[in-house]
């Protein structure tokens, strides 16, 4: 589908012939994200329907204890230093951002009075500024009022390189100014289509100025509030043991009526995913467990016990196989997999096509991931139900054999295909993780049938995902032919996600392998499209550009997507916990309650 097709579809939504929900599903089916789709509709003037809240309790408190289990425990509680989602979730119990993303990709105001849009004047037409109106009457846990000064302070705190926050990427290129006690304006240096980054969701939790202002810059680690958070959130801080447990109690002065429901919250950390699922679904010791990366087989069995269920929420994460465009076995200037080389075997498109045909996604989905991994062909996610013309994936050993045969790869006496004296032998690496090892085994068997030999390698996760310059086994070094892992979409907007194929992001020795283009594939057309999308304010045009980029990367087989990974949580049957795939689990913690 191209830009015109998109505009036509939007027209149908305007006329009421296609519902908003159907439109969203269609867009996700084409490989776009729900937030982007929501933006498209908003831009075309289709008002967002006010989501009806499903929150039932009619008074604050009285719900008893909420016990949740995170098998990676939070290790710090300052959102600006959060390493990974565990710290973000821990912080989110106490701190709140201006807005958060709901499961349909719409922005929901939390500390903001309303969501800025073109209609209400919040968004400037030239895309260079956003005006946020803050909610009135919000207090910090120590009673002081929440004002625009706090928002401006967060920008100063995070954009200062001496503070060394991890959220700096969202704050260093903007200017924030206070317009009055409850209004701020964010200015961008150039037109920015994705304006909902600063102060939104995980990167936008607001910390109080009056407690942190003496600890900016180099003194940031000394702030006592780092360990005893004072925020605006539904629960107040009680106790924290890093890596083990976070405890909170009800905030009786919370800025929304009848919330929160629970009197105390306890977030326990540690252990593994399987026992976390058991603790919720079989023994009922806990009400909720995060990210139960467990085989569906086991989850289904646990659900039968009737105490809890597995909640599956679609997001943007994708498990895929990166195909090395360079040669990992030749060293050039002290660097293997150098951008100056070309892979002798994998540069043959027939080999890439064959590999794509040899990944049995259906089996991976059915027997390994189940509901937790849906077969996909797109890099930007794609639920299986919706296939459009250019989204076909197939598993066929015969076709792979034919393709290789036609390209001149003949079987040798050992069954392995070869051409010009070169055998089709690849090293295939991934991190230690039971489903991944099983996926490797399945692919290896299929490849054997087509005359390709795979040597499997599994690297411990803390080494595989590290950026250690001296270690040859990291995923960025890619010192092998194929590797598989999940790339997470940390923001609802695909811009940053899609820079993984830009030529300036190629990981090289020079940039200490910090570049995000791991497969080292390059294409001028892709680069052009990405740059165009960076500045394009019309979401429909932008969406069309992203779809084109997706198709370019997929057709060239720079990567072979396997399954898209929704988030799976174990939830007790009586607990009502609204979850969103575009934000963290606690995005709407204030609305969690238990049915009687």
């Amino acid at each position, binding site marked *: 589908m191209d830009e015109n097709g998109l505009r036509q579809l939007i027209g149908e939504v305007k006329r009421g012939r296609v519902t908003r929900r159907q439109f969203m599903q269609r867009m996700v089916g084409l490989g776009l994200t729900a937030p982007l789709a929501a933006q498209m509709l908003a831009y075309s003037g289709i008002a967002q329907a006010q989501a009806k809240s499903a929150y039932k309790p009619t008074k604050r408190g009285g719900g008893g204890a909420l016990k949740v289990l995170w098998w990676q425990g939070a290790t710090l509680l300052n959102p600006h230093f959060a390493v990974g989602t565990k710290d973000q979730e821990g912080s989110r119990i106490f701190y709140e951002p201006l807005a958060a993303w709901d499961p349909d990709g719409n922005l929901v105001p939390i500390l903001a009075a309303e969501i800025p849009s073109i209609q209400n004047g919040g968004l400037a037409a030239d895309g260079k500024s956003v005006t946020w109106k803050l909610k009135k009457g919000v207090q910090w846990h120590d009673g002081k009022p929440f004002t625009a000064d706090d928002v401006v302070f967060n920008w100063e705190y995070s954009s200062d390189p001496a503070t060394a926050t991890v959220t700096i990427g969202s704050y260093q290129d903007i200017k924030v100014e206070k317009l009055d006690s409850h209004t701020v304006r964010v200015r961008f240096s150039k037109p920015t289509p994705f304006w909902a980054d600063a102060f939104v969701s995980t990167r936008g939790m607001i910390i109080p100025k009056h407690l942190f202002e003496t600890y900016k810059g180099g003194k940031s680690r000394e702030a006592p509030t780092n360990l005893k958070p004072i925020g605006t959130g539904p629960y107040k801080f009680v106790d924290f043991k890093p890596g083990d447990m976070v405890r909170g109690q009800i905030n009786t002065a919370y800025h929304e009526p009848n919330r929160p429901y629970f009197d105390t919250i306890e977030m326990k950390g540690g*252990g593994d995913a399987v026992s976390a699922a058991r603790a919720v679904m079989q023994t009922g010791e806990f009400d909720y467990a995060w990210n139960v990366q467990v085989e569906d087989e086991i989850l289904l069995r646990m659900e039968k016990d009737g105490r809890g269920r597995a909640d599956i929420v679609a997001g943007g994460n994708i498990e895929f196989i990166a195909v090395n465009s360079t040669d990992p076995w030749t060293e050039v200037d002290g660097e293997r997999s150098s951008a100056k080389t070309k892979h002798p075997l994998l540069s043959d498109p027939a080999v890439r096509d064959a590999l794509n045909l040899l990944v049995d996604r259906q089996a991976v989905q059915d027997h390994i991931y189940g509901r937790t991994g849906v077969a996909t062909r797109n890099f930007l996610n794609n639920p299986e139900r919706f296939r459009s013309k250019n989204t076909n994936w197939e598993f066929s050993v015969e076709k792979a054999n034919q393709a290789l045969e036609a390209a001149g790869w003949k079987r040798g006496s050992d069954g392995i295909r070869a051409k010009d004296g070169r055998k089709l032998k690849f090293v295939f690496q991934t991190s230690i993780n039971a489903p991944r090892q099983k996926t490797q085994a399945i692919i290896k068997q299929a490849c054997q049938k087509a005359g390709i030999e795979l040597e499997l390698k599994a690297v411990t996760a803390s080494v595989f995902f590290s950026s250690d310059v001296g270690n040859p086994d990291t995923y960025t070094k890619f010192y092998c032919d194929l590797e598989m892992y999940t790339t997470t979409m940390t923001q609802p907007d695909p811009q940053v996600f899609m820079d993984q194929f830009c030529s300036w992001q190629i990981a090289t020795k020079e940039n200490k392998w910090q570049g995000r283009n791991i497969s080292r594939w390059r294409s001028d057309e892709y680069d052009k499209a990405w740059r165009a999308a960076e500045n394009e304010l019309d979401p429909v045009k932008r969406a069309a550009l992203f779809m084109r980029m997706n198709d370019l990367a997929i057709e060239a087989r720079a990567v072979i997507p396997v399954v898209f990974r929704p988030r799976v949580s174990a939830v007790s049957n009586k607990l009502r916990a609204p979850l969103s795939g575009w934000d963290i689990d606690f995005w709407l913690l204030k609305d969690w309650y238990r049915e009687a």
Partner: protein
Amino acid sequence: MGRYVLRRLLIALPSLIGISIVLFAVLALAPGDPFEELATNPNVPAEVRANLRAKFGLDDPVALRYVRWSAAMMNGDWGFSFVSRIDVDQLILQRLPVTLFVIGSSQVLALLIALPIGVYAATRPYSLFDQIANTFAFIGFSLPTFFTGILFILVFSIQLDWLPFVYRSDIAETGWRWWWEHGKQALMPIAVLGLFQGASWTRYVRSAVLDVIRLDYVTTARSKGLGEIAVVVKHVVRNALIPVVTLVALQMPAIFGGAIVTEQIFRVPGIGSLLISSILANDTPVIMAVTFVFSCLVILFNLLADLLYGWLDPRISYS
């Protein structure tokens, strides 16, 4: 003996320093990066990561980092965790009580199992009791703790629903209920660890007693008319205790950082789980502090064991 103790204590200090140098070198050279999670996060620019590394002194040469670390240690500053941004001694102190309670009790349980059973089995070698005890001992130490832990959870938590299996260090009850709840949740980890340890110790005790029980002085004691129990307790056990003392001394430091698997399965917030999560996250200050305390304990307990040998067997001399 006094001079021996003095000499050993004097040697302890340089040997500790030597060990700390080797430890530090190993950690500095081992692959891995404390900020790896940031590496996969596209929103963290490379300069921030570089900044963080410089801030924590990760780019300095190893020798310099060692000197800095040892100077800080001697001043009582045990370092600052990269991962938790909290002082390391605070981290350790938070976990110490639970560790001592759960892991300490399991060692006591192991001893309580091993001594009586091992001694009794040795006094009646190859009898039915001995065979059964041996079989259970073999099963006990051939099955790894991750396996028995899960088995216990399946049986006692899931099937029978008697015991909770997630250890919570803060229980909101008071009075006897607090003890009851604490006991219920601590029972399985203590049992898993204690049984595993007890299984191998039973074998050692049995072997040690067997070595002694056929010696002449035991026969002499019996022929003097002493009751069997008196013979066993006063003559046999004391002499058989030397290997047992060795083992217990070897095992004591493991309380402080050894029971990794059990702590993981039952989510006991002990020092073992702190150590393993720090190792996996490459949080060097924490690893250094914990292993340093560990090595102090190793040296201390081995010294105590050597002293005890002298008391148990007066003929042993060190001069």
